[in-house]
């Protein structure tokens, strides 16, 4: 729950400003004391990080895109620093059976490490493939939106380190307004493929089809190019209809078996 004293905060990651320097990846690892992941040469792009993981909470995607992005360009690099979405309706949080995953006073989604017992159910419950068990302590980890820095009134390490302000940190309502304004600006400049991710498109929706993300993104191509799903429904929307059908099937089998056994009733 959001306390009255605290306004929700979040990220706005504007990929049109990203230069792919990976300072965010490094700053995140340093501040959060995350271990190195080893080195795997993927030979596909300048991205050898591959994806977010339990030990990598910012990941810069590199897309070599012929003809995409700026008008008239023959070759464009699309770069995007991906991060936990801090969903308004968070699949990991709803799935968590221990209450380890909570919503903080800053409206962010946070995993309490002393509570998590590594059941791993949050992993397939995240529609963005963000949260993962760490090979180090076998517990679930992801971006904390630098909860400790929030407490000290500091912006998250990645946003602080970003040299182009591609990663912006602030109050969510202000970021949303700014994101819309930035989209309009880019469209006017002729970047027709620009789109926002996390306001309507891409945001995990609850049963009523509502929900936004605490991490907004400005993309320059379809979400799938960045390995982001376009339309996301909260996995837990399934629980009620699926349970009702399961109970119905169970009752029918019960009645069938009762008839098979029965002489009474």
């Amino acid at each position, binding site marked *: 729950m959001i306390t009255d004293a605290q306004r929700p905060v979040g990220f706005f990651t504007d990929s049109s400003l990203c230069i792919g320097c990976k300072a965010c990846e490094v700053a995140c690892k340093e501040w959060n004391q995350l271990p190195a992941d080893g080195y795997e040469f*993927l030979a596909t*792009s300048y991205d050898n990080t591959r*994806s977010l*993981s339990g030990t990598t909470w910012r990941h810069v995607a590199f*897309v070599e895109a012929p003809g995409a992005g700026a008008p008239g360009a023959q070759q464009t690099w699309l770069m995007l620093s991906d991060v936990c979405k801090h969903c308004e309706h968070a*699949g990991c949080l*709803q*799935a*968590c*059976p*221990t*209450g380890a995953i909570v919503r903080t006073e800053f409206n962010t989604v946070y995993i309490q490490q002393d*509570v*998590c*017992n590594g*059941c*791993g*159910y949050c*992993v*397939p*419950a*995240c*529609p963005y*493939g*963000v*949260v993962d*068990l760490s090979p180090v*302590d076998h*517990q679930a980890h992801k971006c904390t939106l630098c909860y400790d820095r929030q407490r000290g009134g500091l912006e998250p390490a990645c946003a602080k380190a970003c040299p182009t302000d591609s990663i912006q940190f602030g109050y969510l309502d202000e970021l949303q307004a700014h994101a819309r304004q930035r989209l309009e600006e880019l469209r006017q400049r002729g970047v027709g493929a620009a789109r926002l991710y996390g306001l309507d498109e891409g945001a995990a929706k609850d049963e009523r089809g509502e929900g936004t993300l605490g991490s907004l993104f400005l993309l320059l191509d379809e979400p*799938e*190019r*960045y*390995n982001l*799903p*376009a*339309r996301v429904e909260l*996995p*837990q*929307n*399934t*629980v009620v209809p*699926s*349970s009702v*059908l*399961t*109970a119905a*099937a*169970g*009752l*029918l*089998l*019960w009645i*069938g*078996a*009762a008839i*098979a*056994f*029965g*002489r*009474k009733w």
Partner: protein
Amino acid sequence: MKTDYYGLPVLKRPHWQWEIALYFWTGGIAAGTYLVAAIADLFGDEHDRPTVRAGRLLPLPLVLVSAALLIKDLGRPEKFYNMLRIFKLKSPMSAGAWGLFAFGGFAGLSALLEAVAAADNLRLLRRLVGLAGAPFGLFLGGYTGVLIAATAIPLWAGNRLLWGPTFIASAFSTGVAAIEAALALSGRGNRETLGKLDRVHRLSLTTEAALLAAGLARLGPSGRPLTRGRWSSLFVPGALGVGLLLPLLLGLLPRRREPSSGSTLLRAACVLLGGLLLRTCVVYAGKDSADDPHAYFALTRRGRR
């Protein structure tokens, strides 16, 4: 050309291993045996006494094994008790932990009553316990299907409405099979009760086969990890052939007056093996399905309805 990010997975693979597949099976059998015993006790007659006895004694050891498997699967088994820290209806994992806990109580009570009061003097109490535990049995047999459905994994979420019903049908069929096997091995079965078990068996196997067929049709290309991938060589001949088709065909054979314990045992073994292979293939093929970005993009693009 399909849009993706160098073909890299969008989702993270669930870390679940054989413990979870085995638990889905043992939990299902525990639920099935309990339910069949409760039904046989409530609606059956004196011929069904061996069925009731087997179905009262089997759930407890199965629940204990299930709990051990679940704890072993945790990343931090020593913190398992945090599962009982909160109760969250929207999380099938939380509801499941509590459900297994509650069902374990009924399984223990049933076994205790059966052990201490073999005579009919506590019949009413035993029937009440059977009936009171039945909702928990139904829950335990089916929630595992809801649990996998409430994820983003294409194989699991793509058939979100039918995994639960499929698993509860399999819980019934494997439960009946376990009781049949116990009766055949102990030589306590009789023609009347085996005939009734046979009817329940055919009902649950037919239901399970129909639900699986509907599920695979609904999944379409998202079902490939089960039907084409590396798990298909176990799933198609094993779970479908040995686990469903063969027992259904065996049931069609003309029956002799006295059912031979050999043929009963054979069919029970087929169904039990089939149930294990079904859970194993669904869990492991689900992990493979998490690696396929196109299956996931197709699911999110079409919406789930």
